[in-house]
């Protein structure tokens, strides 16, 4: 194996470092990007990247790739496993249509030039399961975000307005779950589901506790900012999937006012497409994307991701258990549910997005509207895998954002309902290649708080993708098929300096790092010990047996804040 790489004559786009399609060389040693002088005297492998696009490896900041939800999805949907992606040979057998096996997840990301992915909802008591699956995904770096928004400890400390204890609890929970940051799913709404209900506004009272979603969100932002965690609060809003919900989303985004952070946003609102509906029923539902985009664009401390639906099969799986039940009632499809101790819940329902279905077409159009109308520095490209569809279609979304012509072609094939219910047909914005690279690399890395990811500056992780696309020549407005094809399979994917993919084929297997954030040094864990000991009587496991030890993980990396 070569310790050093010299990527020669590539056309580099590196938004974080202000490199806009410049012909330049990149040097790699010991898994990092280095100066040319560093590789002198090394056994250097030269990669000729002439006329090719060289960018940082893709960063997926929100996907459901590991844990009890996706695995229940696999169990419930054997029909998903008939697509054979790799026959066991040097590499593992890999199968799956949209739901993939763990090896297939790693392989498909790598083939697409993606090198990091974050599991977006880790049930805290199931943390060990999540980590077992993360450890079974080859090729990429990863992490998991435990869910806090319906955890009784959160309710209790928010109710008591005790931010110090809330901070301590967050630090304790991140350490125990080996989690990366604070995920919040339908705060209060999942607790209401335990009684058969949901919350309908930011000011509903959570059953059994004197708290509201508004208080939960603002308290968690405050605690997260005071702890200075890498990533901000990562919020799945209330009222997901309900016509008229865009107003709640706008109101929620504004809760970030009054908080600030020099390095990143203070609130990341996720898969916003599912929370961007106007109207009061599915009969008159319309897009609320414009209002949301206006709000996000007017603020400097909020980011979002798209949650773009892809026509075809998908599986809805979220910690938003009441929404999943609503979806089951709506579609009559299979439904799995998991109420989880005193922590929250989850649900799983198969879905299929059909272009001729007015609601599905509306959802598809709204996702794209968000991607086009929100500043490229504030919106990350996601499908909320597998909720909106496969991550393997990110290249489709990239190409669509860059080409009005491609959108026009697609619009001709979808339900005409989108013509009156959305503004997509009128939007002439075409994102540049540089913007789309930012939305899939440097932006998600910044949003997550990973300074070594998403760029090609000296000292960055040598996670690199090379695509068969010359940015100096390509006309992204018209050559959308070429763009799509180029991003679909990388010419080279390099992870931590190792060549994993060449000409779209796997050539090497690699086991990435699992990041977790340790904030315990900033708090006094003793302060919440009596509370934990007392309230654990409502758990079905002992406090001493709760959580995940670092030595049980394959390649953990502790980030101390």
């Amino acid at each position, binding site marked *: 194996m070569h310790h050093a790489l010299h990527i020669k004559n590539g056309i580099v786009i590196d938004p974080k470092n202000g490199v806009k399609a410049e012909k330049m060389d990149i040097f790699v040693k010991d898994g990092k990007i280095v100066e040319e002088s560093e590789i002198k005297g090394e056994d250097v492998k030269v990669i000729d990247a002439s006329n090719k696009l060289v960018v940082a490896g893709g960063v997926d900041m929100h996907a459901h790739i590991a844990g009890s939800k996706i695995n229940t999805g696999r169990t419930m949907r054997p029909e998903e496993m008939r697509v054979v992606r*790799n026959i066991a040979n040097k590499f593992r057998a890999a*199968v799956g249509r949209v739901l993939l096996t763990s090896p297939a997840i790693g392989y498909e990301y790598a083939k697409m030039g993606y090198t990091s992915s974050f599991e977006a909802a880790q049930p805290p008591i199931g943390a060990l399961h999540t980590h077992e699956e993360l450890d079974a995904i080859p090729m990429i770096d990863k992490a998991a975000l435990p869910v806090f928004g319906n955890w009784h400890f959160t309710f209790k400390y928010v109710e008591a307005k005790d931010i110090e204890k809330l901070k301590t609890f967050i630090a304790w929970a991140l350490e125990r779950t080996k989690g990366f940051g604070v995920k919040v799913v339908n705060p209060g709404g999942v607790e209401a589901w335990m009684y058969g209900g949901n919350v309908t506004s930011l000011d509903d009272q959570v059953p059994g506790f004197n708290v509201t979603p508004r208080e939960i969100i603002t308290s968690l932002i405050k605690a997260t900012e005071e702890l200075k965690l890498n990533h901000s609060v990562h919020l799945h809003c209330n009222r997901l999937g309900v016509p008229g919900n865009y107003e709640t989303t706008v109101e929620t985004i504004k809760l970030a006012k009054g908080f600030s952070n020099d390095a990143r946003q203070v609130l990341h609102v996720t898969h916003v497409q599912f929370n961007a509906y106007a109207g009061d029923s599915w009969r008159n539902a319309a897009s609320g994307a414009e209002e949301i985009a206006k709000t996000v664009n007017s603020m400097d401390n909020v980011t979002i991701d798209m949650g773009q639906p892809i026509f075809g099969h998908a599986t809805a799986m979220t910690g938003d258990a009441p929404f999943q039940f609503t979806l089951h009632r709506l579609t009559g499809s299979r439904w799995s549910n998991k109420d989880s101790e005193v922590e929250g819940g989850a649900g799983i329902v198969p879905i299929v997005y059909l272009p001729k279905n007015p609601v599905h077409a509306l959802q598809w159009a709204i996702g794209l509207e968000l991607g086009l109308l929100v500043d490229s520095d504030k919106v990350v490209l996601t499908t909320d895998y597998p909720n909106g569809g496969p991550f393997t279609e990110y290249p489709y979304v990239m190409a669509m954002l860059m080409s009005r012509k491609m959108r026009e072609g697609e619009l001709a094939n979808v339900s005409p309902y989108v013509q009156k219910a959305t503004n997509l047909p009128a939007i002439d914005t075409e994102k540049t290649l540089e913007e789309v690279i930012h939305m899939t690399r440097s932006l998600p890395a910044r949003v997550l708080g990973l300074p070594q990811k998403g760029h090609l500056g000296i000292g960055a992780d040598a996670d690199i993708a090379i695509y068969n696309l010359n940015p100096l020549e390509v006309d992204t407005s018209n050559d959308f098929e070429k763009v799509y094809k180029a991003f679909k399979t990388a010419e080279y994917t390099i992870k931590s300096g190792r060549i994993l993919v060449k000409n779209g084929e796997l050539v090497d297997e690699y086991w990435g790092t699992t990041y977790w954030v340790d904030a315990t040094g900033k708090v006094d864990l003793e302060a919440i010990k009596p509370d934990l000991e007392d309230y654990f009587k409502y758990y079905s496991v*002992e406090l001493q*047996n709760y959580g995940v030890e670092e030595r049980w993980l394959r390649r953990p990396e502790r980030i101390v804040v």
Partner: protein
Amino acid sequence: MEETVNVICTFCGSVCDDGLFDVEKFKSKRFCKLGSSKFSKKERIKAPMIDGKEVSYEEAIEKAAEILVNAKRPLLYGWASTVNEAIRLGVILTEKLRGVYDQCASVCHAPGTLAVIEEGLPGGTLGAIKNRADVVVFWGANPMEAHPRHGMRYSISAKGLLVKDRKQRKVVVVDVRPTKTAKLADEFIQIKPGYDYPVISALRAIISGNADAVPDEVGGVSKEKLVELAETMKNARYGAVLYGLGVTQSRGRDRNVENAVKLIQLLNRHTRWVIWPMRGHYNVVGAGEVPAWEVGYQYAIDFSRGYPRFSPAEFSAVEVLKRGDCDAALIIASDPAAHFPRAAVKHLKKIPVIQIDPFPNMTTLLANVVIPSAVAGIEAEGTAYRMDAIPLRVKKVIDTNYWSDEQILEKLLEKVEKLMG
């Protein structure tokens, strides 16, 4: 090591994690009868053996690798009583060998998995049930004998957040005979064997407002009684149906569970209900979850084409053996010689068999290569999934010369890879 330590029980699917174990005296506390029998000194397989002759671990593993590599289609079966780390290696090994992976669920709770494929699994953790369930229905399940501490810890007399004690919880048992659990119940409903499906259908009809369609008696239960049960279910704040092998292994099998899941779907239109299987072995859930993430399916998986295929009527161990469709077998943490149908065991006797197990059993008698292993939870650590899929890391509290299942399989996989080149 400390004298008395916390241990996590590795007997049944309850995986109680509040046990204490005196390492010096080899004595457990706070365990049920089943658990304490596992955590006591038992007869062990003394050493690795080839054809009855004692050999070293290395020799036995070498021989096992040869058998597996020379087989056209080996069956790798068992897995329910070992840890996920070993199961994962087993799945990878089976894939490499292009064999068949199957696990104990295929002869007990697999019909429940088929029902998940049809209708999903609207469930909750045992902690959710303990905290919230004011009505618990045991259907074809007898935890007082099969999961002795389940009732106390999670479901019958467990003290929870909203349901403070036994008095605030109504326990119903539906079974074909008065079981030990039935004696503790507030209500026992005895049904005729094989009538689970029609009884569930009757409940669905009553709850959906079609009581007229229900005859005066269904499966040995009067309509009056069924209406009463339906009312109890509808009026619950949070109910739980916990079903056992009485449902999955009687007439109707997966259809019974499917019907029960539909009942739960319906009930959730009125109030909150969950349903969950009472899984048997301590990590039978892991034996399904691990292959699900590694290769997409829970059991009955064939790799002969180099990729996984799932077909329960074709690739479950009993079917493969009955057809004579495997030419070697690795049996781990299980005893098919004692539990499988005669026709299946007959084929097992004909082919080379490798056994990995801490304890001797009927399968030991027909195994060509026997590899004893450490007891997970006492002598080896690893991850196990409780019946509700909550992961727990079982502990190593005693040193041993026995290799763990994980160590044995790691070495075996390494040998197989070497032999296959």
